[in-house]
């Protein structure tokens, strides 16, 4: 089964090398693709030197667009599974096989790495972020009937049909997390959480800096609220089968 490990990256030259080495060690058989989201530093060069395939966006378009570029490539090249993790070292590559295995065994369509499921959680978010996560978790629960312990996780694996689905036009261009899970659930895909380790950032700039969290909350509330009344998901899925 062909698996693609997708690493969207923006100005991560200092950290991505270690992440890629970790991926190599964890899933030696998988192809690794780095989507460089218009970085100003040598992210692409470092990634290539580490043996990854690199796709460079001509300018910075946001994490969601970078990830979707990877999904589009995966659809065209026929990958059966796409596993995605952050380039900044927050996600533990050694947890990849657990996510990929669920997809390979066909036990789920979407495997989400949750930092709160395992007993070994070392992640301690600040109060504000915890409140936000709880709020979106509650909303996701109300809208899908599924309890997610970690709705903002960017550590996940998609099966073939899900990849084809997220490669289409409705996929959000920024902050694609809680609303994506809700849309996928409503489109009829199976979702499963898997305990993973997450670490604090090793440096660099988080996408949640300055006033961005305010916009994040607004955007997520709006797209979560609209997810049930948007018509695309059902239609898209029907088109796939």
């Amino acid at each position, binding site marked *: 089964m062909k698996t693609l490990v997708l690493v969207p990256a923006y100005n991560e030259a200092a950290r991505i090398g270690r992440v890629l080495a970790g991926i190599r060690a964890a899933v030696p058989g998988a192809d690794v693709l780095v*989507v460089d989201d218009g970085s100003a530093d040598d992210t692409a060069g470092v990634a290539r030197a580490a043996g990854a395939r690199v796709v460079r966006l001509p300018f910075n378009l946001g994490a969601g667009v970078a990830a979707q570029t990877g999904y589009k490539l995966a659809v065209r090249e026929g990958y059966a599974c796409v596993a995605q993790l952050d380039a900044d070292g927050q996600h533990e590559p050694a947890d990849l096989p657990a996510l990929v295995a669920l997809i390979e065994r066909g036990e789920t369509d979407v495997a989400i790495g949750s930092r709160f499921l395992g007993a070994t959680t070392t992640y301690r978010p600040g109060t504000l972020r915890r409140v936000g996560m709880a709020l979106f978790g509650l909303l996701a629960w109300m809208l899908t009937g599924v309890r997610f312990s970690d709705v903002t996780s960017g550590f996940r694996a998609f099966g073939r049909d899900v990849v084809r689905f997220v490669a289409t036009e409705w996929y959000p261009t920024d902050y694609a997390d809680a609303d994506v899970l809700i849309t996928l659930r409503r489109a009829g895909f199976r979702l499963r959480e898997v305990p993973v380790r997450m670490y604090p950032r090793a440096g660099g700039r988080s996408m949640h800096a300055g006033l961005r969290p305010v916009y994040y909350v607004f955007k997520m509330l709006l797209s979560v609220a609209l997810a049930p009344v948007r018509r695309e998901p059902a239609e898209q899925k029907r088109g796939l089968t």
Partner: protein
Amino acid sequence: MTQGLTLHQTAFALTTSLLIFLFILELVRRRRLREEYSWLWLLAAGAMVLLVVWFRLLMIITHLVGAVTPLNTLLLFAVLFLFAIAVHYSVIVSRLTSQVKNLAQELALVSARLEERER
């Protein structure tokens, strides 16, 4: 004012609105403004001309929306028009954003494939 426009007022209002109408047409003629984005402006300029030459219409509309003076009616529709233009542009910008996104992704994927082939 409620009795109608003086000749002086009519002349000024008609000249102004005709100039605006012609200005928009000229932009389209010189291809500085695309036809599909000109219709809202032409509509507004046309409405201005119509209201000047047929002032009774403004009085009827004023009565219809329950405004006190024709000035209120004009102001109301001016604000509504600006609102419509702004939303119109937001929709266009959203469409352009997603087209630019798709082009950028396509460019990135195609050039990656080219590079890999040349290596």
